[in-house]
């Protein structure tokens, strides 16, 4: 990709998350959304108008065959990720693949092989890693502000439906169907974010994982996998642990401009603690990042806390990576480890035992 012409992006899948996924491409001076594709023609046309895209398709193959597209952003349901990403790569496009990249490691490996075979870039997009409060917390931990990091604790509060984003019934349907989602909407879909955060702040990888999951049937093929409690142990001689708890507080109002859930993170070290008090929602009116050390508390107020900003940053990173010929923030190898962690948690819940990541990888 040269710097002479803008990177021409094609967005495949114009559902809810496309509203945010488009932000980086719209803002970057060296990129544009040249085409969109969605099986709903009206939606595709509306998005094309909104984003200034010249072409709107209803068939993915036509988007892949478009010579005026350099890169494809894959935003389709998870069970279609392998098929769509592979076809785009085979057509010579760079690909940004929404998390979770695929339902299995074998699917991801086949997509990665297509990227290698065609000499095209493949990045997996996970937005929590671009959220400024998370970046600040990681910077503090890496700088030794909490001493030796010993524990990462995440808590997700799922709130009352209907208070945040309007999500179409079709989107809810595929996400709540384990076959099309690839697992549970909580542990696998949202979990990809949280499992990535489990790795994001620590200098070592997760070695073992255990999960309790309560499944609730919402319809014949609709299931919600929450509440849930996942715990893990990191590799290495230093004893480090982490946990992620999902509370299905479906009667609670979670203030949010997006999905009605919020995530809080606590990174506890040998000499201090960092809290990240918000993410997707606006559950707490607290400083987004707080550091405790040596009996003193320091709050960080000057961070961008809008969840949408993490998508904007992620889009910009992909364009910059292609322009600069460098790896994007999330490479396939990195994504593979996060996916393995999500799969290990699913296996643990299904089999009722602790799972070693080596069994999965």
């Amino acid at each position: 990709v040269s710097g002479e012409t803008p990177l021409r992006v094609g967005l495949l899948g114009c559902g809810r998350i496309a509203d945010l996924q488009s932000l980086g491409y719209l803002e970057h001076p060296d990129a544009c959304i040249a085409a969109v594709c969605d099986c709903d023609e009206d939606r595709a046309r509306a998005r094309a108008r909104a984003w200034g895209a010249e072409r709107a398709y209803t068939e993915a193959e036509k988007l892949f065959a478009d010579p005026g597209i350099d890169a494809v952003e894959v935003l389709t349901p998870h069970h279609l990720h392998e098929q769509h990403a592979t076809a785009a790569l085979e057509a010579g496009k760079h690909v940004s693949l929404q998390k979770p990249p695929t339902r299995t490691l074998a699917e991801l490996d086949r997509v990665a092989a297509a990227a290698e075979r065609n000499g095209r870039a493949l990045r997996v997009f996970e937005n929590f890693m671009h959220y400024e409060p998370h970046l600040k917390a990681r910077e503090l931990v890496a700088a030794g502000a909490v001493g030796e990091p010993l524990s990462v604790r995440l808590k997700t509060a799922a709130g009352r439906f209907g208070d945040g984003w309007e999500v179409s019934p079709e989107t809810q349907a595929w996400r709540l169907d384990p076959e099309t989602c690839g697992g549970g909407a909580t542990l696998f879909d949202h979990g990809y974010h949280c499992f990535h955060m489990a790795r994001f702040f620590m200098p070592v990888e997760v070695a073992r994982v255990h999960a309790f999951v309560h499944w609730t049937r919402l319809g014949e093929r609709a299931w919600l996998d929450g509440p849930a409690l996942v715990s893990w142990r990191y590799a290495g001689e230093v004893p480090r642990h982490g946990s992620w708890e999902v509370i299905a507080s479906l009667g609670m109002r979670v203030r949010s401009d997006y999905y009605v859930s919020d995530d809080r993170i606590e990174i506890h070290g040998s000499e201090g603690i960092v809290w990240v008090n918000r993410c997707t929602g606006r559950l707490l009116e607290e400083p987004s990042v707080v550091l405790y050390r040596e009996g003193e508390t320091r709050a960080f107020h000057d961070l961008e806390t809008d969840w949408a900003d993490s998508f904007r940053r992620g889009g910009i990173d992909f364009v910059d990576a292609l322009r600069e010929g460098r790896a994007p923030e999330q490479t396939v190898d990195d994504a593979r480890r996060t996916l393995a962690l999500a799969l290990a948690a699913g296996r643990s819940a299904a089999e009722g035992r602790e799972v070693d990541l080596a069994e999965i990888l």
Partner: protein
Amino acid sequence: MDESPTTSRIFAYGTLAAEAVMRVLLGRVPPAAPARLEGYARYRVRGRVYPGIVAEPGAHTDGVVYEGLDAAGLALLDRFEGSLYRRESLRVRSASGVGLVAETYVVADSQRHALSAEPWSLERFVESHLADYVRALQP
């Protein structure tokens, strides 16, 4: 999720997949999770509101795995299911793609004639028949 031989995992694809039915039969609903059985198709039993499954290449049946049934619970379900079915240990796939062996009530070979060609839906059963069905089960 106990793997010990004193408890069993069952795969339910019909009326037992409705929690209300399990609650009446066992007095509790064991921990449940979605699962899929490949290679079996589900049809309504002729003249009945419940289904049975038979081996059919390329087909699949979605259902529920219940964990931790004790011997008494399993014996109770055996009596409830009766001679129309035989219980087999089959491999089902969990939501996370993990293979699990689960006790499954399959239509006995000698009873295949009892099946209609009509696919069966849990959603339709719950809407139209569950309340009467549970009422009839109560002592």
